[in-house]
């Protein structure tokens, strides 16, 4: 069995102890999406503000384990201020990283255009060695996708782009 140090990397624990972008946004204009992990009862709420096709603000609410909370925290930093199409590409790359059947090269060169860096998110790579926890790591990202898919999000600019 892989060691816990593969799972609980220092950067992850830092985001767990000091989560970034915790809070709420007024909705509307922000869109709100809730995610549940039926396995463990974790709940997450993503508040997403999109203006002119750009994520102008994002906040995270809810409660969960160290992996789900740190993943949400890092995600909020990674997507802030970026275009929705870039964010969607990042979600695909992250979920690719969280896949046990790896085709890393394909998932890491997704999109073709300018890519957002995974950066700190690379620290979550160790989660794949603990398959039960993959759902913890992807909860915030699936919830973000849900928020992006809400019709009320201001995505017209992106759809036309």
């Amino acid at each position, binding site marked *: 069995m892989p060691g*816990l140090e593969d799972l609980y990397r220092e950067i992850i624990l830092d985001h767990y*102890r000091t989560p970034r972008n915790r809070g709420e946004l007024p909705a509307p204009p922000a869109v709100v999406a809730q995610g549940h992990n039926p396995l463990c009862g*974790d709940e997450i709420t993503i508040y997403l503000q999109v203006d002119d096709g750009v994520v102008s603000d994002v906040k995270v609410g809810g409660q969960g384990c160290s992996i789900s909370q740190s993943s949400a925290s890092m995600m909020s930093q990674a997507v802030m201020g970026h275009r929705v199409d870039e964010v969607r590409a990042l979600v695909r790359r992250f979920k690719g990283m969280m896949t046990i059947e790896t085709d890393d090269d394909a998932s890491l060169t997704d999109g073709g255009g300018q890519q957002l860096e995974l950066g700190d998110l690379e620290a979550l790579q160790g989660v794949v060695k603990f398959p039960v926890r993959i759902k913890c790591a992807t909860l915030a990202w699936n919830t973000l996708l849900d928020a992006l898919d809400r019709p009320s999000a201001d995505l017209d600019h992106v759809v036309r782009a």
Partner: protein
Amino acid sequence: MTAATATTVRSSGGTPGAESPVRFDNAAVKAQFPLLATTIDGAPIHYLDSANSSQKPRAVIDAMTRFTETTYAPINRSAYRLAAEATDAYERARTKVAGFVNAACADEIVFTKNATEAMNIVAQAWGRANLVGGDAVVLSHMEHHANIVPWHMLAAERGIELRWIPLTADGRLDLTDLDRLVEGAKVVSVTAMSNVLGTLTPVRELCAAAHDAGALAVVDACQYVPHNATDVQAWGADFAAFSSHKMCGPSGIGALWGRANLLEATPPFLGGGNMIADVRLDGFTPAPAPAKFEAGTPPIIEAVGFGAAVDFMTGLGMDAVRAHEIELTRYALDTLASRFGDDIVIHGPTDLDARGGVLSFAFRDLHPHDVSQVLDQHNVCIRAGHHCAKPLMKLLGVAATARASFYVYNDRDDVDALADALDGASDIFGI
């Protein structure tokens, strides 16, 4: 082979207010569980998740294998001797299960897929036939989803009202307003033992209150039956649900006990083969109970295993099982309190007479999922999650708990391993 291989001795210690309970030889019992003799990463397994599902003894495994190798055939429908023998084995299992909970006769036991299906038969078959809009069903705040969601489904369809028995601060049913809650109700459906808090509920009192109000008394006995001597007639209940896999039997089979007259008056749940007396182009006539509720080919091998599990548990003696769990729970409460003090919060009653061997706890500020992850590193298997009791989680003000639960094969080593593993857990998170 049952606990005949285990030494039965009289306890010399004695319990206050009770006769010295019969005990079994814990080590000899544990040795009958092949899985517990295996290792992970070269180290022994501390299985503390029996409230979720229990491990299986050699006697149950062998009974199922032997039946499969020598006697297996379809039941109830073929004329050859092998099929008759298989049918007999299936029905013998029913008789054993009936005796285990003191049903009035074997035909009061319906084999189901699990306790959840048994609860659904009550809500969906009995409930649909007997409840109309405005009728009230009384549940409690500590119910498992299996005793909530079927009623929610009926409520959505019929507009029935759900009432909730609240809890006291220490996790017991608060019966202060019971008379008012059951007044005019048609059903009172409550657990006999909480799968989260371990709380034992006053089933007899609840059944009497239900009947005084003219309501049906339903007992979710899924956690209770594996750990306590059960007498459904003494409870005065109308229906009770339990499962095989929590009491050393195989998964895939459970039971609904119902009073014969009630089963007879309840329409079938699933339709198909085996559950009919006659089928015509213009309709069908259901078979008498219990066949009426056993549509299709049932879990035949599993029924044989369920019967073997009853033999195994009976061999140990349910009073001895309960005595073992009280002793182990006492040791666990003492150990965890002395080693961790206020850093550990154990939900539910602390009075051992009022609880079973189920310990849901919060440890420092660690999330249960992380606690479980660290414990798994030490082969300590606990459940982390909402335990299919989300309304109770909300009441406790948590999204999840960590839960260690004990059974006949657990011993003090398992408790010590739990405590040792917890000891190192918070270092990792620095909180």
